[in-house]
């Protein structure tokens, strides 16, 4: 079922004397969700993602805007008439009913011509249980199940009526790390098997990136970016998206562009050109407000942790802080006065292990308290200081100035 959100806005009126200001939870959200997709609604807590989900489910009414399921306008329909399955963050399994009774509950509500015989209901419940692999738990109470099993029961209960749309509110937040990995695969599998358009809400970017067909990044009620997970990661449209996606997070420096060179502190780290004209010099300084490519001025420089490469003669000189070995990768921790956070995290793949070893060896860097990096241009993003919008650029690596 294709879902269309049209200029969806939800405002909560201010309450009381202290916070009389109206809260805009969702602002002008337009999005067309293709049929059969798994969509991750992603954002920090309080960004309006759960409200969006509640609007789609019908538990809350939008202030303005419309919601379509396929060709049907469901904006004014009650939740029970929308044909949705909803899995709550705390699962909301009825604790006094057994797993079977919980799964049967939505079916028993059917009235009139939709009413099912006991036999059919049992079959449907069994089918749903089989899909989420909890058939052997049917006679237990929710309290006797583990978190992961409860989650499955909740999904089975949401699926048993064969909804047109499946909505999951923070489906993995109550599970431990190992179970989370397993369950998210499970959600992916169930979604593929049923082909039901599924929207899930999460604040965990890894979760969203790993299983979604598309992610929607939200902040403060406003959609920041929509796209395939890898595209959004590789091409963040603004500083917020860049900061929000990726673990460890992107390193943000205060930088400036001067004469086609990108400076971080006193270090010229990259040669900068207007986009599409890689290698050529761009037209000289355009007024900052009119420039399309990067002109001179202050910018934020975001560098992904994997965008650093360790080189003895690299242009970016940082204060060496230590090394974290995380199994496959090595994280080099360092500091730079222009960096917004006190620690710069650079992930160095196994190829560079030698380099790290040299750090410790006697013939390594002359000055052991400092470390030098060169930056990979495709992992470096420039952002406007005022708006946080991405500034497109092309670059070539600044060759080291020597030691």
């Amino acid at each position: 079922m294709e879902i269309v959100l049209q200029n969806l806005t939800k405002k909560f009126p201010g309450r009381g004397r202290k916070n009389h200001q109206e809260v805009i939870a969702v602002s002008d959200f337009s999005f067309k969700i293709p049929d059969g997709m798994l969509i991750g609604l992603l954002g920090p807590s309080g960004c309006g993602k759960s409200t969006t989900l509640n609007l789609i489910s019908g538990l809350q009414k939008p202030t303005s805007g419309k919601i379509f399921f396929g060709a049907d306008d469901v904006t004014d329909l009650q939740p029970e008439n929308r044909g949705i399955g909803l899995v709550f963050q705390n699962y909301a399994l009825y604790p006094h009913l057994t797993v079977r009774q919980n799964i049967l509950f939505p079916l028993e509500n059917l009235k009139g011509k939709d009413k099912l015989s006991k036999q059919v209901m049992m079959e449907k419940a069994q089918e749903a249980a089989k899909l989420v692999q909890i058939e052997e738990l049917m006679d237990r109470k929710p309290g006797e199940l583990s978190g992961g099993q409860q989650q499955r029961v909740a999904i089975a209960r949401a699926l048993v009526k064969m909804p047109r749309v499946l909505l999951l509110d923070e489906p993995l937040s109550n599970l431990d790390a190992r179970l989370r990995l397993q369950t998210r695969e499970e959600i992916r599998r169930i979604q593929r098997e049923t082909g039901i358009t599924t929207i899930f809400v999460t604040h965990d970017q890894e979760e969203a990136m790993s299983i979604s067909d598309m992610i929607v990044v939200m902040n403060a009620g406003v959609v920041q970016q929509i796209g395939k997970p890898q595209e959004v990661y590789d091409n963040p449209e603004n500083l917020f998206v860049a900061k929000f996606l990726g673990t460890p997070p992107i390193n943000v420096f205060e930088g400036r562009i001067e004469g086609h060179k990108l400076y971080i502190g006193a270090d010229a780290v990259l040669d900068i050109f207007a986009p599409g004209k890689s290698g050529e010099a761009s037209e000289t300084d355009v007024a900052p407000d009119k420039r399309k490519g990067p002109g001179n001025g202050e910018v934020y420089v975001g560098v992904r942790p994997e965008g650093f490469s360790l080189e003895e003669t690299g242009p970016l000189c940082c204060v060496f802080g230590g090394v974290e070995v995380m199994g496959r990768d090595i994280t080099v921790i360092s500091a730079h006065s222009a960096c917004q956070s006190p620690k710069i995290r650079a992930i160095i793949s196994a190829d560079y292990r030698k380099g790290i070893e040299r750090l410790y060896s006697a013939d390594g860097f002359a000055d052991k308290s400092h470390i030098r990096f060169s930056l990979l241009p495709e992992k470096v993003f420039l952002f406007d200081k005022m708006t946080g919008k991405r500034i497109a650029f092309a670059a070539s690596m600044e060759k080291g100035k020597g030691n």
Partner: protein
Amino acid sequence: MGGKKSGHGGAKAWLYLLPALLFLGAFMVYPLFDVFVYSFEEGYHSASQTYFGIGAYNYSYVLHDTYFLQAVKNTLILVVITVPLSTGIALLISVGLSSITPLRNLFQTIYFLPYVTNTLAVGLVFMVLFKKTAYSDGLINLILTWFGGTAVDFIDGPYWAKMFVLCFYTIWVVMPFKILILTSALASVNQQYYNAARVDGTSRFRTFTRITLPMISPMIFYLIITGFIGAFKAYSDVVALFGTNLNAAGMNTIVGYVYDMLYGDSGGYPSYASAAAIILFFIVLTITCVNLIFSKKNIHYT
């Protein structure tokens, strides 16, 4: 370390417990035990502190005393009528209260007022409502006659009228506490269950019977148990309504009978009083046990 010192620590613990244990022993355990002993001492005389022998005569006397049988009958009627009715009405009012938003606090306060009002003051109000005096027939009778009924003397009149007043009064008095407990129980049911039920298209009635009721069943059960015990202990309310000569009014309760046997005009018989008290104890014990057995099947603790 804990293991080594446990003997020592045990002695210390008892020392710390001693004040509480002393008072509990002196004012609870000993009197309970004493009542039990009294109830088997035949012909005990409180002035001389002597008795003839030991046996079950006190029980036999009490169980053959028409006043006691009347008291048991009154108490049972009171219990059977007021406990289910007050709990049911309190549930209805609580559900109503939790589904309205404007004026909820005002209504909650109004419903809670009887709880903080003095029993005797309430008794006086009921007098005004129900009692026939030289000047008026009471408010209720006034209304009754307006609608073409005949005035009934609720305080000194027929048995059913008196019982009606007593039950009405008891329900009115116990209601606030029940409403208080039930509204907070209703408020503590996680909204997510209702949302889940809504999404699944559950009718309001089914939501109430299949979700709300089981969720608050421990609280309802608590109210029923304490309701039973409270109703069996009824005494002061009856005095407030019908005065101290309850046997004459035919409105005595078991506790009233015990009191009369001790201090009333026909009093001075601690043995009979003790026997009656022990009988009351066993009635309450039986009912509570039945309740507990019933609850095992039907109450859902989460």
